[in-house]
């Protein structure tokens, strides 16, 4: 009984978040936000997460290099280290990592900022002063998170290749040239597309959840804290579920069109 109530409220919440997302899209179609405000937000989001994403990207590259080295040494296939590590990062680890990083940093920041605007009645004041908060406040933040995740994905990838080269060199004496040689062959267009689609989907989930949670905050300072925690939890869960779903759908699609996954 109790779990049924919880399930019900979770479904309700997902429903309202989807409705909120649709409203953002409608606003985007009818009255897009000002370009200045959008660029300002993109700049802010990117700057906020530049260092964290760069560092995380570097270490992901390093970790991948270590893991692949351990396995590939046995097969004498170290020449493919760079290609495989990069491919795995592009397809899966990169987008997932960027999304988690952004959820922790930008997601939390955005829901706290919007939640504070809600509980201090700024969002009500905006409406009374003749503006649409969805258009002027939510939309630029929403779009900025999506745009910035692509920049940060690119940065993360470059850094991860750097990390991979360093560790590959130290651990397996793979030279820079050797590390890079097979990247173009193994990192195919389809794996890049896969990574970009995932990055986009995760960013949309993050942007929707954090703006929704912030916008619908109630209950003073405590409510803002709750909104931030809920944003972190819901985006993480949402992203993992979406990751599984996209992998699943991609798999089905490939089987349907190509016949076999390889």
């Amino acid at each position: 009984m109790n779990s049924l109530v919880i399930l019900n409220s979770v479904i309700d919440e997902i429903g309202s978040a989807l409705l909120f997302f649709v409203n953002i899209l409608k606003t985007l179609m009818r009255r897009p936000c000002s370009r200045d405000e959008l660029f300002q937000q993109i700049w802010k989001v990117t700057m906020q997460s530049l260092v964290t994403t760069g560092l995380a990207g570097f270490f992901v590259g390093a970790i991948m290099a270590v893991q692949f080295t351990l396995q590939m040494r046995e097969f004498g296939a170290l020449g493919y280290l760079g290609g495989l590590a990069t491919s795995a990062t592009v397809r899966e680890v990169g987008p997932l990592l960027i999304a988690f990083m952004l959820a922790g940093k930008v997601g939390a920041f955005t829901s706290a900022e919007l939640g504070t605007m809600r509980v201090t009645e700024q969002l009500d004041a905006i409406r009374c002063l003749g503006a649409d908060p969805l258009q002027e406040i939510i939309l630029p933040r929403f779009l900025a998170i999506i745009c910035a995740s692509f920049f940060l994905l690119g940065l993360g990838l470059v850094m991860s290749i750097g990390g991979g080269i360093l560790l590959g060199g130290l651990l397996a004496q793979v030279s820079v040239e050797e590390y890079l040689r097979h990247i173009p062959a193994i990192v195919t267009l389809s794996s890049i597309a896969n990574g970009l689609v995932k990055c986009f989907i995760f960013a949309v989930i993050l942007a929707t959840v954090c703006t929704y949670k912030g916008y619908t905050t109630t209950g003073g300072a405590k409510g803002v804290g709750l909104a931030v925690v809920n944003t972190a939890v819901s985006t993480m869960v949402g992203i993992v579920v979406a990751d599984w779903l996209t992998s699943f759908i991609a798999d089905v699609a490939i089987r349907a069109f190509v016949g076999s996954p390889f």
Partner: protein
Amino acid sequence: MIQFEKVVKRFGPRTILKELTLHVPAGEILFILGTSGTGKSVLLKTLVGLLRPDEGEIWIDGQEVSKFSEIEYLGIRKKCGMVFQQPALFDSLTVFENVAFGLRRHYRLPEAEIVSRVHSSLAAVHLPDASEKMPGEISYGMQKRVSLARTLALRPQVLLFDEPTTGLDPITTASVNLLIEELSRQFSTTSIVVSHDMTCALSIADRIIMLDQGRIVEEGSPDHMKRSQVPLVKEFLAEVVT
């Protein structure tokens, strides 16, 4: 000017406003008193369409507005300026831009007109020199006055105040109360002040309404309220400083 007819507002299972009926003639200063959580803010927010009533009608200037679209409500919000309980200033904008915000959205005015309106509004709240400051750099009492100036800049016919003096020190409270009376009379606006300050209500109001649990339990002139036998009113009267 403003009429609530049997307005009901619910949040989930809780009914906040219970068939509330209320008439406010033009030019009146009406005080709505009540303890915290009885729905005073909800009442003001339903009037300007920030919240929608579940039942009943709301009439403003001969128009039934409760079914208005968000776009149609813009006209109402020009006419009825709301001053929120918190200053609700935008922290990233200067005081000047905060006050100009509504003018830039609601009207298409030449910049010179905006500048002059902002300055006259700031002068009206006795803050002529604050325009280049950021909200974070001025005191809470000043922020509340800037917030008042931001609403005044629209030159509304109706002023709605949500607990204008809650959380202010006695001196600032006195000055804000004076300001409310001054501005209401000077611009001959209709004013609805939500408050739990009986002292101030008795000195400024034309009429006082006591709200309890979403219902009106007593209403009348300040003199009438002073003689009221309703228990809640007597409790409020006990707090009055004379």
